């Protein structure tokens, strides 16, 4: 197998340099076999040991973890889809990524479940209220039950927060948790949200959620939504940006706020290690600058979920360029829609991106 390190340079003048994630598919023989980040996670305990297992979440860089699976992406006829209603991927022992099946709702939102020693945090709740269609609560309960058993805990309190309270592609599953014991639900109104996260000087300042030696920072990022919030997970080095920045057709709600929020995240990423930007959806194809339009429930050519932190600067530049102007900006990994309708320039791309023919028309 040849190495992928000698790729031709990208055609896009705007695209930042990308890391090549799988340059060494069979392992790099020159890399240290016992890297500094590796340590016992107490996952496999001696027989007979009792008492709660406590993790040390302090780490110098992003915690190890991998999305080693392809996301399920619908089917030609959504009515005949028999994939799981929620795809669950364990990123690492304390981080779970959940995705709603595209054939239940085209938004196919991602939901993140993070664990610390004293609490669990669910970021976003999906696009479908009915548990019969979208069993978020039973799925989260099952993950928590198993996690508690391996950590020898009776239970762990759950906090449910939203990257945007108003976003009906992310707040619909909230009511499934309404009667859940040991559960705190973030409010959906902006004023109450500011109080909940102690963000008195919104959109300045930050809050924090302590899950027990794992701290999640709360950064106000209005722009796509007036109540947008980004969560920074110090353990994984993830920015959970929701609708603010994700590989898709990003609808800017207010361009001044949007630019300000991206600047805030840009500054944040200069001061804190960011491994990936983890958004709420995927709408891009893997062909540069191409995206699926709204409502598509079969997306076989999807882009990956994770975005490199360099995309922040690229998005900031692109958003600054359209400040005050109705326009659509096409970039390799995202599209910005400013002051236009959600279907503006569907299926289009920019001439300065390489054109890759994708057979999108006939299912």
């Amino acid at each position, binding site marked *: 197998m040849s190495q992928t390190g000698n790729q031709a340079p990208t055609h896009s003048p705007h695209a930042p340099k990308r890391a090549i994630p799988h340059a060494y598919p069979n392992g790099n023989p020159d890399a240290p076999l016992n890297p500094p980040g590796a340590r016992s996670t107490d996952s496999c305990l001696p027989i007979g040991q009792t008492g709660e297992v406590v993790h040390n979440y302090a780490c110098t860089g992003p915690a190890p973890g991998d999305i080693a699976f392809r996301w399920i992406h619908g089917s030609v006829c959504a*009515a005949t889809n028999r994939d799981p209603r929620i795809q669950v991927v364990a990123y690492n022992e304390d981080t779970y990524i959940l995705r709603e099946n595209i054939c239940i709702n085209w938004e196919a939102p991602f939901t993140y479940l993070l664990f610390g020693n004293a609490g669990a945090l669910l970021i976003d709740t999906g696009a479908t209220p009915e548990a019969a269609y979208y069993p978020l609560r039973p799925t989260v309960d099952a993950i928590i039950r198993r996690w508690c058993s391996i950590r020898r805990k009776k239970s762990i309190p759950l906090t449910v927060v939203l990257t945007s309270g108003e976003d009906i592609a992310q707040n619909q599953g909230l009511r499934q948790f309404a009667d859940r014991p040991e559960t705190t639900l973030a409010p959906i109104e902006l004023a109450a949200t500011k109080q909940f996260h102690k963000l008195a000087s919104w959109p300045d300042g930050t809050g924090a959620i302590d899950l027990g030696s794992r701290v999640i920072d709360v950064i106000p990022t209005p722009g796509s939504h007036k109540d947008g919030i980004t969560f920074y997970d110090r353990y994984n080095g993830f920015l959970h940006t929701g609708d603010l920045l994700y590989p898709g057709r990003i609808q800017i709600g207010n361009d001044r706020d949007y630019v300000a929020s991206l600047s805030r995240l840009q500054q944040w990423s200069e001061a804190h290690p960011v491994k990936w930007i983890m958004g709420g959806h995927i709408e891009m194809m893997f062909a540069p600058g191409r995206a699926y339009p709204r409502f598509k429930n079969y997306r076989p050519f999807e882009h990956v979920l994770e975005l490199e932190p360099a995309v922040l600067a690229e998005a900031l530049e692109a958003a600054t360029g359209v400040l005050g102007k109705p326009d659509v900006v096409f970039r390799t990994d995202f599209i910005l829609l400013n002051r236009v309708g959600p279907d503006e320039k569907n299926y289009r791309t920019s001439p300065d991106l390489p054109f890759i023919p994708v057979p999108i028309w006939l299912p």
Partner: protein
Amino acid sequence: MNRRTFLTYPIVSAALPSMSTASAVLSRIPSPEVLSAAASTDIDFTAHLPAPGTFPERWICGSSSCMDNQDPPIQVHWYNEHTAYLRQNKAYSYEAPFMHLYFGNQRILFIDQGYTQLRTDWPLRDVVDGCIAEWCKRNHRNIEEMELLISFSHLHDDHWAGINQFYDRPNTRYMGLTHEEMIGFWGMTNYPEERVTLDLGGRSILIWGSPGHVMSEFAYYDTYTQILFTGDMFYRGRCYISFWEPWFASMKRLMDFLETHPVTHVVGCHIEISRTGEDYPYGITYQPDEAPWQLTVAELRHAFEVAKTITQPGIYFTGSVFLCNQTRGTTTVDKNPYAYY
């Protein structure tokens, strides 16, 4: 046999016992048993017009969760005993196109084949074969003797995607996927003005060109039900008018047609509007409050009056259809619901 003779193909029936026509016809003479059976049940498609029929109160229109949809993949509605309309389930394809089956004494015309390619995903072939078997049983016909003509309204893939499900069906002809093959199929040499008459065996279908949405589109008029089918050129939804001049000329052609022919209903390929006139955006898979499929002649005439006043590209609502003049293909009137300035 060229295209023109194919269209006016002599109808083999007991009424023509001499069979003095060309030898090409002889090979297609039904067996004597069938001939006598047909003779006893020949359907008269010319008396008591228009033949009455009904549309469903509501069509099946998707569900909030597509994968939980329990409706049939294709809704079959018999408008009357000899006319069936089919609709693709919205949970199988958001386009949810309508399809037409017109039965004559010798031939069946099947217009449009939906938006899914494979029979394993969406069993169009099985449903159509089922309809034909049902009709043949009801009318004491031999299925093998009925020729199936498969055509489509226009050259967009949501109207012919299922066409190859019929590749091995006996006694079946289908249209090619180019403009040349389309007009050749009907033997037209003067598209779009030329109006040809397709004889299904006592039941005539009038066909002529109606470019505007695309350049390659037909209008179909069934003399039996007197239903006018205008494809995607005019339907209750967003009429994407790619080319204004040809579209306006096609509308004018429809107006002229109304002067000489009675029309009971005008039908198109889709429904994209609610009963309250709300636009269902392009691609949506659930339309819980759909407006009726059929349009009245008055609605068509009114749309023409509105069209006369249109001089600029844009979206114009006539009260029954959106005329999207030279807007891009998937235009909706939607705005970003979360915008705040």
